[in-house]
């Protein structure tokens, strides 16, 4: 396994962000779902070696990042990380920033480095904006710059914290294509609020809530938990977990008792997620 977490815990100022997490990840794409404050970012930061766990054991790419600085460096050589929030030096161009990270990732040969930078910029669709200052890019474009630096060197472990934030549907489709190629050889962990991205990309999904694992399995299995619990009806249903009026004028009802005259609907990953997390998910599903 590329990633092994055993009994991992992390607290901030006495509050447990992660409690006794035991998970393993191998090749392929795994999605992390969960409401705000569930511990997704904390988990990803631990896997990305940005922070250390307070408890438990962490093994990444066959090494223990806490054993020594040399072993940490060795692990980081196989790692690519896109943080949830990524700032950029104001004076750097798209190309300059990615090149800088390439140097940090020890691409010392100038020509090889330039080829690699161009390759990843091409991969994320930013080749035409290489000379533009990052500060002048749109939010979605900056997110793609962040993704480009994470993809440098074809890392064996790719950790992406909300990679689709700010991306339009076409850009998300491009990202999905990119990740589907990368995932053949790498372990990809991504967190997102977009359940359709998880459904489209991930073989496996882990649902976190309040620092604990609520579900760990395939996307198909998670969706199956909502079978027979989703309906379409003409009226609002008060005791449903979540209900909303769709564009067709009918109400989609998730959870609760089947209302009279309701017809059963094919559940989606989002429905299963909302059912699993109940009120927590409902609050986080509300528009900001």
């Amino acid at each position, binding site marked *: 396994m590329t990633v092994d977490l055993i009994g991992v815990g992390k607290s901030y100022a006495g509050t447990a962000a992660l409690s006794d997490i035991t998970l393993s990840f191998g090749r392929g794409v795994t999605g992390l779902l969960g409401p705000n404050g569930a511990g997704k970012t904390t988990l990803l*930061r631990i896997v990305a070696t940005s922070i250390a766990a307070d408890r438990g054991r962490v093994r990444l790419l066959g090494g223990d990042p806490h054993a020594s600085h040399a072993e940490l460096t060795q692990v980081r050589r196989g790692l690519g990380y896109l943080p949830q929030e990524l700032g950029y030096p104001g004076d*750097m161009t798209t190309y300059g920033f990615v090149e800088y990270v390439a140097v*940090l990732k*020890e691409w*010392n040969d100038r020509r090889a480095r330039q080829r690699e930078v161009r390759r990843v910029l091409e991969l994320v669709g930013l080749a035409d904006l290489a000379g533009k200052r990052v500060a002048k890019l749109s939010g979605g474009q900056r997110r793609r710059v962040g993704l480009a630096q994470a993809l440098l060197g074809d890392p064996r472990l790719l950790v992406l914290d909300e990679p689709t934030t700010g991306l339009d549907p076409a850009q998300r489709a491009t990202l999905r294509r990119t990740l589907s190629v990368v995932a053949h050889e790498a372990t990809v962990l991504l967190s997102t609020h977009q359940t359709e991205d998880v459904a489209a990309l991930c073989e496996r999904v882990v649902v976190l809530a309040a620092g604990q694992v609520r579900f760990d399995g395939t996307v198909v299995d998670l969706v199956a938990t909502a079978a027979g619990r989703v309906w379409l009806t003409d009226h609002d249903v008060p005791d449903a977990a979540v209900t909303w009026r769709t564009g067709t004028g009918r109400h989609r009802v998730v959870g609760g008792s089947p209302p009279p005259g309701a017809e059963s609907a094919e559940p989606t990953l989002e429905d299963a997620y909302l059912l699993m997390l109940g009120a927590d998910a409902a609050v986080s599903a509300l528009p900001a």
Partner: protein
Amino acid sequence: MQSTLPTTGHGTLVAMVAIEARRFARHPLFLLGALVALVLQPLVSGVGDPFASDVLAWPIIPAFFIGLPSLVVAALLTRSTEAASEAMGTAPGSEARRTLAVAGAAVVPFTVGLLWLAELFAIVSIKGVHPHELWFGTMDDLHVWGILLALGPVACLGGALLGVLAGRWLTFRGAPAVVVVALVAVDIGAQIGTMGEDIVAHHASGDLGVRARLLAPWALWHSGGLPDGRASVGGGDPVWYLFYLLALCALAVGGAAWHDRTARTPRLRLTLYAVIGVAVTFLALAVFAGPEAGTVSEPVPFKVEG
């Protein structure tokens, strides 16, 4: 396909220094300061005078227009890459290596400082100096080199390295400007007792208080021209002072690297202690090993007022 390449730490640092040096050289603040310094120097050389005068006072130009802006630029560059610290922090290159890279970029202001020095020599060779001028021939040649290098190119270098130190440790808004003001205040404060109308008398007195000015990271050596046509250079040894400043430069780099907890090895700790010891030794030599009394020139006729 795995496209990572074999790695070497040294090669990484060189590549990083190259990137940071390009960023430094392109910074508008640095470019403006360098341009002003190089344009201003011929103007202060005494446009209407028959000779170049008070040459040993000219290093204030690169110190002010290159050294101080370089402090700000270096601090900004050091802090700017930390905007992406979470992504960069998980790359193999450490914070200390990034610090060393920006410190390495200080070669840019140092080089421009050398360019300024070359311009100074060009002006002096064209205009010539009066036989009474405090310069090569009227002073110990090594002392002249010491003053020019310490207060010119090394001041440019030191300003940038102090900026790296400030950029690592001081993260509040406006910190670089505060450090500039503090540096100027310390320099003036260290020399305040040697200034004013009696500066020549102060320099000639051999008073320890005059040589104590050498504690400052940019100490005034030349008095500037006086109304009676004389000028003076303060007591102390400029060559040891130059080495003292270089030791302070090394200390700034070490102090900046110290910010990275993973870099706080026993070797770095010992190195810092050693550099502190060396700096104190050089300072002591600058104050006590050189001439106690300063050098006072004969009056330069064309500078006599009235």
